[in-house]
């Protein structure tokens, strides 16, 4: 009773863990199916688990689904590229100068809690419905975590590292890239992971609200048609894609974390 095993992770083997996780999913699926058979879920509107899976199977055989997926990820990749190309150098610039960092930080901190949908109306009238809308929104939404994490990582480089660079007469650029940027890499990794997840969410949002081509747009069309099986199937598919994005970038982050120099 006394020690209820706080460090419980070690007590389950790798396979036992996997089996438990699988059984969790299976139990949820069974509960869902039972509750829609028993009529706890409104049968007329909410599809059952099996209906959702078969809907998923059906849409995975349609061209529109894969075109939508391709469009979403095209906008996602484009937005990510732009946000990385702008966000990381800008963060490096803001973080490496103490005065600039002090001046810009309050503003950046204040801007952070503004939801990324705020600029949607003006982007909509400026660039219209389409690929540009979603790419611009994604770039804007993903840039903030990159900017914040990079500038923070660069600004908090240990003084010892900077002094060492001075002693070895590092040039300005070597100092910037091999000391500041290298030290900030783990934080930049977290920034990239956050940015990737936000970018995916914004990509869906741009399609749903702004009608940009992609999975979000398909979702909007299904909801206008009151097509619940398609809606459930699409939402499930979007969740799976989200899991893929997050796990890929978590592993990228872990790789960058190996750089971390213990001080």
């Amino acid at each position, binding site marked *: *009773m*006394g*020690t*209820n*095993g*706080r*460090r*419980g992770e070690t*007590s*389950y083997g790798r396979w036992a*863990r996997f089996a*438990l*996780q699988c*059984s*969790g*999913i299976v*139990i949820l699926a069974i509960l869902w199916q039972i509750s829609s058979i028993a009529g706890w879920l*409104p049968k007329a*509107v*909410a599809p059952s688990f099996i209906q959702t899976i078969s809907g998923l199977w059906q849409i995975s055989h349609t061209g529109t689904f894969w075109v939508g997926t391709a469009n979403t990820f095209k906008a996602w990749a484009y937005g990510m590229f732009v946000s990385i190309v702008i966000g990381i150098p800008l963060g490096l610039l803001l973080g490496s100068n103490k005065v600039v960092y*002090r*001046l*810009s930080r*309050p*503003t950046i901190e*204040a801007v952070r*809690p*503004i*939801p*990324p*949908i*705020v*600029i949607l*109306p*003006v982007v*909509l*009238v400026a660039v219209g419905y389409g690929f540009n809308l979603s790419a611009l929104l994604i770039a804007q939404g993903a840039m903030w975590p990159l900017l914040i994490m990079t500038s923070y990582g660069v600004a908090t480089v240990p003084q010892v590292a900077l002094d060492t660079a001075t002693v070895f007469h590092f040039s300005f650029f070597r100092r910037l890239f091999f000391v500041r940027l290298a030290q900030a890499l783990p934080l930049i990794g977290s920034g990239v992971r956050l940015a990737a*997840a936000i970018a*995916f*969410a914004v990509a*869906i*949002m741009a399609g*749903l*609200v702004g009608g940009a081509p992609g999975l*979000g747009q398909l*979702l909007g069309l*299904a*909801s206008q048609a*009151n097509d*619940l099986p398609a*809606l*459930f199937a699409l*939402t499930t598919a*979007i*969740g*799976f894609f*989200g*899991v893929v*994005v*997050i796990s890929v970038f978590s592993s990228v982050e872990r790789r960058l974390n190996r750089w971390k120099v213990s001080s």
Partner: protein
Amino acid sequence: MRRHTSWAIRFVAPLLMPVVLLGGYVLFAHWQSNLYFPSLPRIYSAFKTTWSPHGLRLNAWPSLSNLLLGYPAGLLSAVLLGILVARLRALRVASEPIIAFFLALPSVAIVPIFIVLFGPGPGTKQLIIAQAVFFQVLVNVIDGLSTLDPTLAQSADLFKIHGFRRLFLVDLPGAGSQILAGARAGLSLGVLVMIVSELFNTRFGIGAVTLSAQSSFDFPTMWAGMVFTAIIGIGLNGLFSLAERPYLRRAGLLQTTTGA
């Protein structure tokens, strides 16, 4: 003398960048003379009419009351369920993939299902906000409670602190900073879905008034809505910082006393 300059830096410096950005916008709007980017005075007058006391009651109150109900509901249910799941180790491991799925599913994507299932009423919007907050907080409660400092658990065992006393005196404060981080992330997510939920078949609300202004080419009002949304986001985040201060102060005190 030095004190004067440091005070000046403290209060003037943070305002420097917003002033530069605003100035940049004024110049941009002036040079562009574009319909989409109205001048600051025009936005200001639209802001005053859109968010007059009457306008606030008509459009801000429906949105904010949804947040006011949905956010605490999501927060509380996540904390309660999180405590339960963190306790039961098998349940925690079994629920990991499910929670990971709902965290990875953008909360915006789940809005249409709710709207189609339950209609566009305020109850649906509160539910949408609550579920977005729920998963964000839940994962942090579970993670915070199951990665507590082992020394803390050992000391609690040593002093025979168990049950609810342990939960409220040791476990929850120990996981506090992570739970608060989740609650903060949940708040900004809540504001986002509050706006998004109003873009479907809704007549009143901050998001509704902004989007309808956009589609009727009333760009100053659209900007007034955008500025108001930004203010809500910043303001609520500021309120959250104020609200978490007592906990942080106590946690800080705790650190100094144990460190001494």
